């Protein structure tokens, strides 16, 4: 592990932090590569080598986690939540949510219970892992 690799880790972490912070914005590979100060060609591959999944998948799971949070702890409609977490259409949202969580947003809402731990922990620990 060279110092250069540590610097690469930090740059990838900076891009991942941007997804955690600004998940609702249209963060595409060019935008994330700029944050990480690397070329677009290298970004996805390096991110995957660092964290074990593509930046697109990470962002989807972050958005779904935030949607799960809002379904559990707010009264907003599924459609409102879809746009609030950064999905472009309710169809894409429902399909992605179901792929990742195994249930529809509405079913999830009925079954989920609110948690009481600080939000920073639920962001890290309830993000779906598949």
């Amino acid at each position, binding site marked *: 592990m060279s110092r250069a690799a540590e610097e690469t880790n930090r740059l990838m*972490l900076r891009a991942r932090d941007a997804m955690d912070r600004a998940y609702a914005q249209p963060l595409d590979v060019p935008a994330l590569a700029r944050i990480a100060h690397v070329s677009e060609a290298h970004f996805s591959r390096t991110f995957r080598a660092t964290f074990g999944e593509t930046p697109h998948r990470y962002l989807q799971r972050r958005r779904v986690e935030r949607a799960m949070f809002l379904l559990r702890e707010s009264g907003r409609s599924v459609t409102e939540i879809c746009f609030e977490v950064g999905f472009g259409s309710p169809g894409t949202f429902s399909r992605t949510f179901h792929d990742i969580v195994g249930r529809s947003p509405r079913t999830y809402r009925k079954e989920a219970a609110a948690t009481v731990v600080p*939000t*920073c922990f639920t962001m890290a620990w309830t993000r779906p892992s598949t």
Partner: protein
Amino acid sequence: MFNAITHSQIFVLDQDEALDFYVGKLGLEVAADVDMGFMRWLAVSVPGHPERQILLERPGAPAMSEETAEQVRELVTKGATGGWLIFTTEDCRKTYETLLGLGVEFTEEPTERPYGIDCGLRDPFGNRIRFTQLKD
């Protein structure tokens, strides 16, 4: 049984850089900075509260093998070690603006929570820090 927590520890990759960040930017004070020969005991605390110190420890030999130290450094820079510090503040938004002006890298803007307003940042190495303005 126990009376208090006096010391906690996080790994930093460079103690001079850690000092610049934790003291120079976050405004903590040096509680101890002792060259023990085999290691530099560097601890910081919230000003006026030396009873609770954070040891800023550099991973390395002889405490661990060079290979293990490299692994720790890799985990720190991936944001994957423990490295949680949570502080309280009188005014979360004001502190956020101050630190932002000093070039601190935030992971989350001040956000309203049931327990107060808090936000998140990273130290220069990858450790996670939060501070909260608790509700009365």
